[in-house]
Each structure stands twice: as structure tokens, then as C-alpha cells.
């Protein structure tokens, strides 16, 4: 009997091609290690990765490696190893995957395991972490000190409150603090690498990144079309490029290629899912081990994820007047970093919601993307991607009469995600979405 083909979750050709970039980072880092050049293990640090890259460093991203391991089904061994090392199983799944991997390296004279997916992560000479987004992003790298004798650098990123952002002088003082931090970061890397940062090179990287992010933002705007030209899995495949490798010279032309493919679909009324019936938003991090789940939702229920994962998306473009006369790339980077985080503060203050990061964008996107519902992926191992979900759920219902559904799971640990149960929940949720369509119509909403 023929085995039933798993419905493809990726519909764009460029989404299929995007895997090249993740593999490229691993390959380049392994080559750097062979050539004796230092490699950094880096968090995705709100675009501050440009700084070490402008100094010629190769970066690998353990967060992305965790997602990769989950997607190819090799995370379980690393997770079990992390448990055996004494790390609680409620910790970040990416971190646990990394602890397991690091433990294997430590047991093998710090050699990259031969069976590691994608060739594995090269040995780190330095850890580049961040105070932004979540506690794990610096506590995790600190904890890796038991396996590697490598310094940890943490980039500060204050999590400003919605109303605090609008206090006189608050934004400027925070950007000044960020910029000062980044200059210290440059000094740290200069000492580590024994060479000076070339400011012109950094400017080139920043300029390229801004261009890439602008195109990525335009792609987001194209996705407002009905039917949607993209799926959530399309985005999750492509986001590696503009999120992790924003300033890479190959990423800008690739992002333009994505834009062209998506625009073609929009101009010709081509839907990503031919039978799109329901448009869902998705919060926040997907089950990397089970992305085919979304293919099944699309094929069998006509459910498409039309917008997802706030933290992975490009920021709102920085207003031109804010960059007028600013040529210092560090200053621009500090503004970009803070913009990424606080860009939707005016939406937050408009609706009186706190915080604006993670939450406020949805209050704009629900209308932009004409969403019928929100799918909340409650993650046992990720507090920041989970704590705002019910908060957002209440806001979407209170203001827009858009319902939400909760699915329990994990980003890396397949064992805590029940796909069949999740599918049944979505099936039942269809009725709820139908009901609230009527409610919104009566309340004067136009979707």
C-alpha cells in the first residue's frame, strides 16, 4: 500500500531553498575551526551579530541548531543527556539541546561529534549572549562554562515598559546606554581577536542589513493579501536569513527573490493554500519537530497561518528623521536594536497594553491580516514566548472579537506535543471562528 505523503508545509520555492543558509553557517564555522580562526556561539542578538561578523568572525547559533535538531529528529538524545547533567527539563529546549551537545563534545576532547546534524557546531572560542528577550539567553551561556573555557559577553537590552517608553528622555537615554554597550562589545572583540574594528566595514554590514530588513518588511506587508501568498512554515524556513544573517551578502538578493516570488503570487491571485478558509495568527515559537502539523491543517481544514512569531519578524522601519545625520554604525545599530524591541509601543499605548513587545504588534496585525483566530503554542520550556499568550488572547477578544486556541507543546521536545490532540482542538475551533465572524460582522468589523 502506498504510504500517505505528508502534506508539505512549505509552499514557496524560496522556502525550500532557505535551508542552504542554516547549513552555510555550520559549514563556515567548521571551516574556520579547521583554519584556526575563532568561532562564536551566538544568540540572535537583535542584529548585533553584525559586529563580530564585520570583524571576520564566524558565528553559529545554538538556538537555530536546537530547532534544526528538533526538525531532523535528533534532539531527544541531547535532551536526555542534558537531563542527566542535572539541568531541569523545564528549561529552554534550545538550551537543553545545547547542553546535551556540549556534554558530548566535552566527553570527546571538545571535538565536534561525528554524527551531529549538519556537521555540528564548531567549538566556541567565545559566547555572545544578550539580556534581551529571555533569561535563558545569558544564563544558558553562563552555564556552558562547565564545558568550555570561553568568555561570555552579554549585550544589555532593557525591557522598557509601554508608558515608560514615552517618558521624556527615556528613549534617548536607553539608546545611549545600548550604544555605549555596543562600543564596549567592540572593545571586547578587538581584544579577543587582536585587531581593530574597521568602521567602514561595519557601516557596509549595517547598510546591507537595513536594506534586507526593509525588503523583509515589504514581504510581511504583501502577506496581508487574501488569500495569503505564504504559509507560516514558509516564513519559518525563510526567517533564518533575515533574522540570523541579516547582513550576509547573499541574504539581500535572496530576500529580494522571496519578495519577487510572493509578489508574483499576490499580483496573480495565487494562494499558498488553494482552499484557504481560515486565517490564523500563531504565537510564538512553533513546534520545530512537527511543522508538518501545519501542512495537515492546511490540507484538511483549509487553515493557514497568515502571521506568526512576532520576535522573528523585521522591525517597523526606523523613521527617516531618526536617522538623519546619524552616520555612526554603532548608533544606527543601537537604534535598530531598540526599534526591534519597542517599535510597536504606540500600538501598546493606544490600547493601554503592557508590555508592548510580544503583545502590541498582534493588536495591529489582527486587522492587517484579517485574522479569524490566534493559535497560542504554550511552551513548557519558554516563559517569554508563553506568558503573554493568554494576555494577548484576552486583548484580541476584548477589542477585536477574535478568538484564540491554546496548544500545549515544546519547541524542541517532541514528547510533550500531541499532534492528534492538537489537530482535534483546531477542528473544534473552526466552529468558534465561524461564530466570531458573525459577531464581528454585527459589531461593524469588516472581516
Amino acid at each position: 500500500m502506498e504510504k500517505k505523503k505528508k502534506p508539505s508545509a512549505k509552499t514557496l520555492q524560496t522556502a525550500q531553498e532557505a535551508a542552504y543558509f542554516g547549513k552555510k553557517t555550520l559549514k563556515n564555522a567548521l571551516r574556520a575551526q579547521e583554519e584556526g580562526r575563532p568561532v562564536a556561539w551566538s544568540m540572535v542578538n537583535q542584529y548585533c551579530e553584525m559586529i563580530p561578523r564585520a570583524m571576520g568572525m564566524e558565528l553559529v547559533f545554538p538556538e537555530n541548531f536546537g530547532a534544526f535538531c528538533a526538525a531532523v529528529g535528533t534532539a531527544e538524545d541531547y535532551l536526555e543527556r542534558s537531563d542527566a547533567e542535572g539541568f531541569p527539563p523545564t528549561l529552554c529546549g534550545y538550551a537543553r539541546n545545547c547542553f546535551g551537545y556540549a556534554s558530548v563534545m566535552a566527553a570527546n576532547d571538545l571535538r565536534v561529534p561525528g554524527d551531529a546534524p549538519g556537521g555540528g557546531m564548531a567549538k566556541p572560542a567565545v559566547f555572545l549572549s544578550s539580556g534581551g528577550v529571555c533569561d535563558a539567553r545569558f544564563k544558558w551561556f553562563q552555564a556552558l562554562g562547565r564545558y568550555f573555557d570561553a568568555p561570555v559577553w552579554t549585550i544589555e537590552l532593557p525591557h522598557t515598559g509601554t508608558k515608560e517608553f514615552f517618558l521624556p528622555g527615556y528613549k534617548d537615554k536607553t539608546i545611549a546606554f545600548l550604544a555605549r554597550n555596543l562600543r564596549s562589545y567592540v572593545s571586547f572583540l578587538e581584544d579577543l581577536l587582536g585587531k581593530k574594528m574597521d568602521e567602514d566595514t561595519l557601516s557596509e554590514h549595517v547598510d546591507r542589513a537595513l536594506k534586507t530588513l526593509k525588503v523583509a518588511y515589504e514581504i510581511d506587508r504583501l502577506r496581508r493579501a487574501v488569500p495569503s501568498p505564504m504559509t507560516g512554515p514558509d516564513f519559518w524556513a525563510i526567517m533564518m536569513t533575515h533574522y540570523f544573517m541579516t547582513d550576509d551578502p547573499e541574504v539581500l538578493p535572496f530576500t529580494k527573490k522571496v519578495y519577487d516570488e510572493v509578489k508574483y503570487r499576490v499580483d496573480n491571485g495565487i494562494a499558498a493554500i488553494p482552499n484557504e478558509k481560515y486565517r490564523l495568527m500563531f504565537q510564538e515559537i512553533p513546534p520545530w519537530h512537527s511543522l508538518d502539523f501545519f501542512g495537515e491543517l492546511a490540507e484538511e481544514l483549509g487553515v493557514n497561518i497568515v502571521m506568526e512569531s512576532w520576535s522573528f519578524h523585521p522591525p517597523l522601519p526606523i523613521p527617516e528623521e531618526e536617522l538623519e545625520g546619524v552616520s555612526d554604525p554603532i548608533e544606527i545599530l543601537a537604534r535598530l536594536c531598540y526599534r526591534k524591541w519597542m517599535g510597536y509601543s504606540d500600538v501598546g499605548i493606544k490600547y493601554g497594553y503592557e508590555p508592548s513587545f510580544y503583545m502590541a504588534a498582534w493588536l495591529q496585525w489582527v486587522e492587517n491580516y484579517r485574522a479569524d483566530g490566534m493559535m497560542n503554542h504554550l511552551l513548557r520550556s519558554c516563559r517569554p514566548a508563553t506568558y503573554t499568550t493568554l494576555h494577548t488572547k484576552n486583548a484580541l477578544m476584548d477589542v477585536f472579537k477574535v478568538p484564540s486556541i491554546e496548544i500545549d507543546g515544546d519547541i524542541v521536545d517532541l514528547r510533550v506535543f500531541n499532534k492528534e490532540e492538537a489537530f482535534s482542538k483546531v477542528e473544534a475551533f473552526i466552529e468558534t471562528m465561524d461564530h466570531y465572524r458573525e459577531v464581528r460582522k454585527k459589531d461593524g468589523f469588516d472581516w
Partner: protein
Amino acid sequence: MEENFIRLFENRHQMAQEAHAQGKKIVGYIYTYVPQELIHAAGAWPMQLTEEVQAHGVSLPDHFPDYVCDYLETILDEGLRGTYDYLDGLIVPHGCESLRGFFGMWCMNVSTPFTYVFSPPNKINPAAQEYLFQEFQHQKTLLENFLSTQVTASDLEESIGIYNEIRSLIRDIYSLRSQDNPVVSGSEVFSLMRAGLVTPPEDFLLQLKAFMAQLSSRSNSPAGKTRIMVQALAFEECFSSVLNLVKMVEDLGGHIVADDLNQGLRWITAPLSLEGDPFASLARYYLEEVTGAYLQPAARRVENLLQAATRAQVDGVIVCTTKYCDPYSFELPYLEKAFQDKGFPVLLLETSLSMPSAQVKNRVEAFFEILKA
């Protein structure tokens, strides 16, 4: 006097409601990064929000997912039920992600007139100090506007003086707790520290002085023989009506001679300097002296713990970690190994309100068997 401290804690809401009714301004806070001296200098009573174990989960399912620590869940629950309606203000540091989310939920659902959130820096350096100084200046301005007052340097110096005196007396009590034949028990110390969180500092200072006078005339030691250090985030993890680890230890013949609680050792290690500009001193103190797992590397905190354990000549260490507390959980293997390498036996306890205390008691009993062997 222990009963007095227990009563102060148990009656905290009633006391606060009465004070509020009489016009006293009360500004709540959570965790040690909030500058209590500044709140006090502005004329308000700084009061730590504390966990209400009986209230667990009543109003929460629509606000907080399950995967968040009990501590914040129950405080939020109490806020939703109106228990903290006497608060005029709430200041919350971004000490961890759950706390950051808690602040948002509180603002959205509980009517506290003045709220403020800030991010203490991750690092200790001149940029961080300047940033925290600016943060505290923002808080000062906002408190002045809200409370219709001016906070002068001498106001702040006076408040710092009171808190320094509190810290000094607590350090003395901690010394008495850890000496041979200690004249004060772990239960008494935990009771008084917990009362200190919820009592106006002037009143707490009087209580401490009276307690010290009492201790100076004690000759009998109420303490057991096995010397234990407890590491926990908050008193509620180990000293509550649901889980009283302190009593378990004492019933087994043990004595808690050292701790690393949020408002214990971590808060009292050094006085706040009154040299120079007190506002600058305040920022320097909260950046350099207040250590916790949230923001700073484990090495510094663990080194302090090892020194405290060595000074107190502990026989064993009990480490309590609230389930879903990421900053502490990441440090567990490092912490355990650091203690074990120095020859201190360690018991790791992951605590939650749903955990039966009998289960904890079994593990503590087994730990004591190991220590006696």
C-alpha cells in the same frame, strides 16, 4: 518575640489597610532590585508583595499559563481578588521573564494608581551604573510627582541610615545564628526577616532592637546540632504554611545557620555607603552589592555562598528552587558541584505549591541520615 513577628506578617494586609485609610501611601515592590530607600525617602511605605499560599490558582486560568512560578501566580491572584487594593503604587524590576509578564498582567487587571517597571543592568561597569542612576532618577521624579513631594539628598540619606541600621542589626543576628550554641533559631530569624518585608522600616527597626535586647540576655540555645544552609529565592519556598522546611529541619535536630534568600544574606552583605552623592551611592549599591541569579553570573553569587557556608561551618546545604524558575534552574548543576567540591553535602529540592510536603519531608529525613552518617 517570634510570635510577634509571625503576627506582623499574618496581619500585614489589615495593617496596610488601616495605614492606607489614615492616608499613608504604600508602594509595593517585588524583589531586592527595587530601591526601597528611595520609596521611603519619598514618604511612602515600601512593602514587598508576598505569596499567599491558600489562594493558589483561584482567578488565574485566564491570565497566566501554567508554566510560570507559583510565587507570581499567587500574588497576581491576590491582586485580582482585591487583597492589594490598598496599594498606591507598585514598582517591579525586570528580574526575570515571568516577573516582567506579571507586571503587565497586574497593570492590565489591577487598579494600582502608580506603576513602574525598569530593567536593572546585567553587568557591573560604569555604563551600567550611569544607566541605573538615570533609572532611579526617573523613579525619583515620578514618585515626587505622584506623592506631591520633593526627595532631597538629606531625605535619602536619612532613609539610607534607617535601612543601614536594619542591615547592621540583621547582620548581628545572623552572626548570633551561626555561632556555636546559637541563642537564636532559624525559625526566629526567618520569622523576623519575613516580617521585615511587610513592616514600615521604622517600626521594624524598633522590633529588631527589642529582639536584640532579648537575645543578649539569652543563655540557652534553642538550636539543634546539625548545621544547615538554605538557599531559596523567597521565604515562601521554604517557610510557609504549605511547606515549612525550616520546621522540618528543626524537628530533625537541625539548625539553619545560613541562608541565601532574596531578603536575607543577599540583601544585607554590606551597608550602603553615605559618602558623596546619596543618589549615586544608591545606584552603585544596587548594582554592585545586591546579588541574585537573575542578572549576574553564578560565579560571584556562588562564591559568596561558599564563603558564607564556610564561615557558618555548615554540615549540609539544602537548595530550594521553585519549579519554572529559570535563572536559578540554569545554575543548579554548577551550584551543586561547587558545594560538593568544597565538601558540603547538597540536597536539591524543586518546590511547588502542588508538591505534597510529606514528599519533601521524606527527602529531608533521608538527607539528615546522610549527614549523620
